[in-house]
């Protein structure tokens, strides 16, 4: 047995992240409790190094490990995004975990290993590798959801997520094994050849494709496979919720698109029809149900379902019948752009929930935000910024993301779908702006004034600064990100 050195160099970032996690697991028991923050900083340092390694390798396309792994611009784009999100989660967690008294350094190790799983997902060119990446990511997330283990809600979130996640993994694996039966290989290239040769007349290919789509739909929380989202997002520790809502969704979309376009590229019209249905259902349900939520975390969970619906518009465009390669690849790059922007604003919104505290608890109810503007002007202003960005109102980045998605839909001849998206964006403005209204228009009760406070650690401020910079800068000047997304969109067959 020999490991080719060139292959190891190709996956150097993955190796470094795993190494950091292992060093952390070993050092944690022998370090004094006062120095535990060092471990978190070590992880952040590793992420910065990885960021530069991946950024330097942008534009190349390398295969490694007998073509099971591919590192191309598409994978690199997602990896850069994932580094940023993971780094923000770690920085936010340093203060949050102390506040919640769940200050264990292993938490950062799980984030790093979960990140490894996501990196493997986005650069897997083989269904087996993609599946293992998903499992690595999910198992770390199940554990992190249950980190507040003395709280029933957190345990419930963990158990629910575990059972439904295992179920969806089973469906996905079943689909993979069927397509292996049809193609004789789990490599996406050979699957594409088999799909082209047989088409969907072969029930084996048809059922495999549907099962794989369902499996991924669970992971990106698209209706009707979204049932786990609200409870899990609400029960999990807030920083974990932010990590799940952003990183795991981005990585799942990345792998989903790669499997659909590279593996099932031959039957595009068929799957884009299926996904069109899912997309519309997701938009309707996510936005309508979010209106009646009074818990901010739950509302953000439904809002993240709705945002998955918007991103699915891009998937539909990428596979829509009769679209040219240019339009289809605009669909792909608009998803990349949208999820990058979505990451910043969602991260910011969850960071606000994490730092606003009422007594010893988190300020996660809508009531806790009542009259926030009177007490903490800055915090209320930032929350307002994230909310109008999530609603997609210019000049914030949320508008740019939706704009490019709807443009792609219009160019593909799906103007009506863009209109549907627009209508539901208007609906969503209602519940986002309600938060703003509650913060600015209502008087806080005297009891609240005593109880509510901001647990603002320096690292959380860095995260907020990052999120605000992302929301504002990308809203005013999106050019660079657009060009990066366009140039690293998946080459279409």
């Amino acid at each position, binding site marked *: *047995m020999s*490991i080719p050195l060139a292959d190891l160099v190709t996956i150097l970032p993955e190796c470094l992240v*795993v190494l950091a996690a292992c060093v952390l*697991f070993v050092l944690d028991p022998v370090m004094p409790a006062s120095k535990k923050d060092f471990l978190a900083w070590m992880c952040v340092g590793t992420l910065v190094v990885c960021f530069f390694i991946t950024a330097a390798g942008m534009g190349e396309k390398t295969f*490694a*490990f*007998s073509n*099971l*792994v591919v590192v191309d611009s598409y994978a690199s784009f997602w990896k850069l995004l994932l580094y940023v999100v993971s780094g923000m989660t770690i920085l936010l967690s340093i203060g949050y975990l102390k506040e*919640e*008294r*769940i200050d*264990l350094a*292993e938490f950062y*190790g*799980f984030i790093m*290993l979960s990140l*490894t*799983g996501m990196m*493997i997902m986005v650069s897997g060119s*083989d269904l*087996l*590798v993609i599946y*293992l*990446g998903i*499992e*690595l990511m999910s*198992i*770390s997330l*199940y*554990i992190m959801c*249950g*980190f507040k*283990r*003395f709280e029933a809600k957190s345990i419930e979130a*963990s158990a629910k997520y575990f059972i439904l996640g295992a179920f969806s993994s089973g469906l996905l694996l079943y689909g993979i094994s069927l397509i292996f039966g049809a193609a*004789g290989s789990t490599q996406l290239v050979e699957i594409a050849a088999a799909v082209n040769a*047989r088409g969907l007349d*072969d029930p084996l290919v048809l059922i495999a494709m549907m099962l794989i789509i369902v499996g991924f739909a669970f992971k990106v929380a698209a209706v009707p496979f979204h049932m786990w989202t609200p409870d899990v997002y609400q029960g999990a520790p807030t920083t974990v919720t932010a990590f799940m809502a952003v990183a795991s969704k981005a990585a799942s979309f990345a792998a989903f698109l790669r499997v659909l376009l590279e593996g099932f590229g031959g039957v595009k019209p068929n799957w884009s029809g299926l996904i069109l249905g899912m997309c519309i259902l997701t938009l309707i349900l996510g936005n309508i149900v979010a209106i009646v939520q009074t818990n901010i975390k739950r509302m953000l969970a439904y809002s993240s379902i709705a945002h998955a619906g918007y991103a699915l518009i891009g998937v539909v465009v990428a596979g829509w019948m009769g679209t040219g390669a240019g339009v289809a690849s605009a669909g792909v790059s608009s998803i990349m752009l949208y999820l990058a922007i979505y990451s910043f604003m969602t991260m910011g919104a969850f960071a606000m929930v994490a730092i606003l505290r009422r007594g*010893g608890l988190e300020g996660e109810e809508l009531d806790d935000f009542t009259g926030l503007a009177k007490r903490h002007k800055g915090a209320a202003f930032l929350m307002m910024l994230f909310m109008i960005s999530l609603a997609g109102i210019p000049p914030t980045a949320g508008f740019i993301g939706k704009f490019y998605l709807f443009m792609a839909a219009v160019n593909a001849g799906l103007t009506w779908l863009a209109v549907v998206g627009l209508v539901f964006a208007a609906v969503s403005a209602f519940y986002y702006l309600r938060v703003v209204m509650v913060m600015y228009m209502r008087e806080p009760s005297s009891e609240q004034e005593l109880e509510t406070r901001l647990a603002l650690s320096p690292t959380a401020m860095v995260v907020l600064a990052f999120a605000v910079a992302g929301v504002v800068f990308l809203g005013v000047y999106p050019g660079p990100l657009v060009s990066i997304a366009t140039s690293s969109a998946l080459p279409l067959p």
Partner: protein
Amino acid sequence: MLTATLVVALRNPIHSALSLLVMFFHVAGLYVTLHAEFLAAIQIIVYAGAILVLYLFVVMLLNIKREEQFNKQGVVAMFLGFVLLAETVLLGISRGFLIASPHAPLPVQAGASVGNTESIGELLYSTYLFPFEIASLILLVAMVGAVILTKKGIMEPKS
């Protein structure tokens, strides 16, 4: 077939588990006749060795005394069983027993010179080295996670 029936039919759960064990061994024997020695070994190690012991532990810990729990499902079970049997027979007749695949069967490379187990090991450490390593990471996560979620005294609830 006989032992599989016994698993369901026997009243004592321990006896059921033991006949399950015998069935596992028979399935392993079937694998050997198909020249899948590796699968046969895994069948015995994983199913007979690990999973069955887990079953027995659960059965003994729970100490199930009441045995009339599921007796009312007999009619439904017989009906479903009959439907499935009829379906199998129909399919067998209509497709001429061996379901003729519309495609040529995939070529089976029998490891003629080296044994089945060796060739799987060879593949695992060469072509599929990368997935193999990811699987090891998954086990690491599961192990550390189990400790974190269950160990006493590493986290105190808020006062």
